[in-house]
């Protein structure tokens, strides 16, 4: 039971990244690799401020602004300097490694005896269940905010930008500014993922972000497969599926470890799993033709 609970908790932490990737990849059609850096940045800011005993009302905005600025820089490089989005993301991600290391001062900060989001309130006596409920509420609130945002007039303009840029410009939207804002929101969400995960696992490590973008992508692709298959247009359902996608992804990883696969091969298994989800719909389509 504990095994699945831990998986669920990890899935919820990473669903914030999945929401971020959903915005950059699905809504804006921009492959954003800043993720690896902004995820770690979120965890680093959390560790540094928590060990300096800063309250949550300072910590949370700091994490959101940190991730947002990282995303905005990628957006600026991509739109204003006309540099390929992948390269822009890689540049910012690489630079963030130094920023993160500089902020931490060392490569690992333990967070065992500091008060965190999960010691803030006591919903359940069992610390694992307590973590789960707090996470569920936290992710629920984040999803509500993003869902509302996507339904507003601003959100429609955002969703249309990745779809038909010429139309959106003709309808009076500065698409450059829109992309910068969108990448800022996406990376703020990713940083929130780092904020959550560092507190759940009780430490921040400089290398915790490596390959995290794959996890986000995998979660979104699982969701997208279902969205396309059932032709879902509802914003709420789509966001819900993205979160479920993140949990399913963690479940697959957990089962892989459970059946005795050497953790050394975990990243390879993850990559193959993502490849499978991406290619399966295409393979089955080809057969039916």
């Amino acid at each position, binding site marked *: 039971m504990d095994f699945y609970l831990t998986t669920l908790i990890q899935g919820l932490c990473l669903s914030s990244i999945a929401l971020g990737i959903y915005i950059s990849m699905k809504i804006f059609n921009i492959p954003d690799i800043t993720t690896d850096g902004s995820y770690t940045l979120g965890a680093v800011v959390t560790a540094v401020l928590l060990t300096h005993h800063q309250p949550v009302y300072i910590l949370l905005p700091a994490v959101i602004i940190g991730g947002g600025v990282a995303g905005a820089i990628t957006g600026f490089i991509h739109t204003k300097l006309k540099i390929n989005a992948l390269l822009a993301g890689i540049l910012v991600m690489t630079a963030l490694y130094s920023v993160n290391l500089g902020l931490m001062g060392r490569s690992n900060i333990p967070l065992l005896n500091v008060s965190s989001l999960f010691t803030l309130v006591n919903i359940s006596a069992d610390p694992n269940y307590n973590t789960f409920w707090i996470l569920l509420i936290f992710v629920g609130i984040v999803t509500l905010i993003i869902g509302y945002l996507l339904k507003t007039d601003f959100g429609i303009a955002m969703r249309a930008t990745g779809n038909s840029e010429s139309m*959106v410009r003709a309808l009076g939207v500065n698409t450059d500014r829109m992309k910068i804002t969108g990448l800022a929101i996406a990376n703020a969400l990713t940083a929130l993922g780092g904020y959550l995960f560092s507190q759940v696992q009780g430490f921040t490590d400089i290398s915790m972000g490596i390959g995290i973008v794959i996890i986000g992508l995998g979660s979104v692709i699982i969701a997208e497969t279902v969205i396309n298959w059932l032709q879902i247009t509802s914003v709420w359902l789509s966001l819900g599926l993205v979160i479920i996608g993140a949990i399913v992804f963690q479940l697959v990883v957990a089962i892989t470890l459970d059946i005795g696969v050497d953790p050394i091969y975990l990243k390879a298994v993850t990559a193959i799993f993502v490849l499978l989800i991406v290619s399966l719909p295409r393979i089955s389509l080809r057969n039916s033709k």
Partner: protein
Amino acid sequence: MIDISNVHKTFHTGKANQVNAVNGVTLNINTGEFVVIVGANGSGKTTLLDMVAGSVFPNSGSITLNGKDVTKLADYQRSAWIARVFQNPVSGTASELSILDNFRLAAIRTRSKGLSIGINETFKNQVRERISTLGMGLENKIEQPMGTLSGGQRQALTLLMSVMDNCKILLLDEPTAALDPKSAQIVMKTADDLISHYRLTAILITHNLKDAFSYGNRLILMGEGRVLKDLDKTQKSVLKQNDLFDWFG
């Protein structure tokens, strides 16, 4: 309404593939005029239209809309005056968004896109009512993604979208080029009705000489980046369809 003064546009300046797309065009288009521009490929029609819309900036010369110099304003800043219909239906609508979302965005073309939800029952009914005038039965499908519709349906909806918000100038860049003859006819008819009903100032680029003959109250022939012929309302009314064909003979 639209004053184009001695505009020039050269692409790839100084390179082997240098193109002098527009070579000193001066045009004054009055309010309510429906100008049709014809000309061979490469005559500069589309570049001229793009300069009016703001997606291409001239090398020299100026463009004034309704008395305001907009030469340096980007396309999204000119949307306060201008609505556009593109040659490719995909360019004028967002495929993955519902018809309703597309209309909502068009309804706030001249305003800022804020953080409030603008789609409510009143708005839905307004959209249904507008769409029903097309007689395509699309009024019951407003929640459907735009991408599920045909090119003709999308162009017709783009036209309706352009008058959802205050519109003074309508730019039509070969709106029927990608359509079958029947859809093309419906789209042109819709455009003509909207232009006269809302008293729009319009510019239509077309390769269809029949359309150029039947629609509009001013006809311009472009070639090599210049205005070769400019027929006003009376001159156009006495023009014979065969004379028009002879221009391209």
